[in-house]
C-alpha cells in the first residue's frame, strides 16, 4: 500500500466524518468539498506512472501518463464547483428563513 492511497482514504473518511458529526450546515458543505478533493486526488493517482511526462506530445516521448482520468478530473472539478455554489445559496436561503444554521433546530421548527 503506497502512501498517497492512504492519504486519499484519510481525506475521504475525514470528509464523511465531518458530514455526519457536525450540526452546522456550512461545515457540512465543507465536508462535501473535502470528499470531492479526495476523489480528484484518487483520479490523478490512477493516471500516474513513475517517470511519465504530461500528455502533451510536442515531441516523441517514451512514457506518457494516462490522459483519460485527467479529463475526468476536470469534469469532477467543474461539477463540484457548481454544486457547492448551489449548496451555499440554499444555506443562505435557510439562514434567512429560520435564523439558524443548526440542523436539529431547523428540524424542530417544522412543528
Amino acid at each position, binding site marked *: 500500500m503506497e502512501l498517497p492511497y492512504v492519504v486519499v*482514504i484519510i481525506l475521504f473518511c475525514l470528509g464523511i466524518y465531518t458530514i455526519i*458529526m457536525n450540526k452546522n450546515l456550512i461545515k457540512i458543505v465543507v465536508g462535501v468539498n473535502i470528499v470531492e478533493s479526495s476523489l480528484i486526488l484518487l483520479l490523478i493517482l490512477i493516471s500516474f506512472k513513475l517517470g511519465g511526462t504530461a500528455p*502533451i*506530445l510536442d515531441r516523441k516521448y517514451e512514457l506518457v501518463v494516462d490522459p483519460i482520468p485527467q479529463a475526468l478530473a*476536470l*469534469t469532477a*472539478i467543474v461539477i463540484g*464547483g457548481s454544486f457547492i*455554489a448551489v449548496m451555499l445559496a440554499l444555506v443562505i436561503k435557510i439562514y434567512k428563513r429560520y435564523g439558524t444554521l443548526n440542523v436539529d433546530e431547523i428540524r424542530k421548527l417544522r412543528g
Partner: protein
Amino acid sequence: MSRVHKIFRKFYKIGLVLFLAIFLLFIFDEIQNLDIKRYLSEHYISEGVQETGAINLVTSVLYDYRGFDTLGEATVILTAAATLSFMAPIKKVKMLGTEFTIIIYQTIIIIIPFLVVLGMNLIFFGHISPGGGFVGGVILAMIPILVTITYGITFSENKLKANHKSLLEGIGAIGFILLGLLGIFAGSNFLASGQANFGLGNPGELISAGLIPYLNLMIGIKVGAGLATIFNSLIKEG
C-alpha cells in the same frame, strides 16, 4: 440516560467511519495489485495526435473522443447559474465590504489587461499547450469578480449587465451545440471533429485540429459568463 445515549451515538458514528476506512483500504489494495493493460489510453497515446490533430491529449479526449461528456458538464454549469439567478433577489442589496486604499483601485486597473491576455491565451492555445476552455474561462471570470470585490456590486452590475452575461452564456451553449451539429451535416456523428475530416492540418499549429479550437472558445465564453453570474448572485444573497 440521555447522556449515555449521546456517547453511544458518537462512538457508533466514529465506528462507522472506521469501518468505511478499513473497507476502502481493502479495495485500494486490490486496485493497486490489479495487473491490467490499458488498451484505451494506449490507443489514445499512440494514435490520438493523428486522429484528432491536437497535441494536448487531455483536450483531445475532452472535446473529441468524449465531446458528449463536455456537453453535459456545460449543461451543469448552465443549470447552476440559472438556479442561482432565480434565487438571487432582483432589488439592489448593500454589499458587505470595506473601503480600500487608492493602491488597490489603481492596481486592479493595471491587472485587468494582463488577465484578459492570459485567459485568451489559455483558450486559444488549448489544443497545443496546457490550458483549455475551462481554465481560460475561469481566468476571464476573475475580472468581473475582482471588479465586484473592489468597486462594489452596483458599479460592477452597471459596467457588465446581468442580461449581457446571460446572453454570452447562451451564445456559448448554443454555439457548442451548433458546432456539434456540424458533424452531422458532414456525414458523421454528433460532435465528431476528427472522424468527420474537418481539415485537421499540421498538429502543433494554431489553426489545426478541426473543430477543437472553436469548441474551446465556446466553452471558455460559457464558463466565464457562468462563473461571473454565480459569484454575483451569491454576493447579492448576503
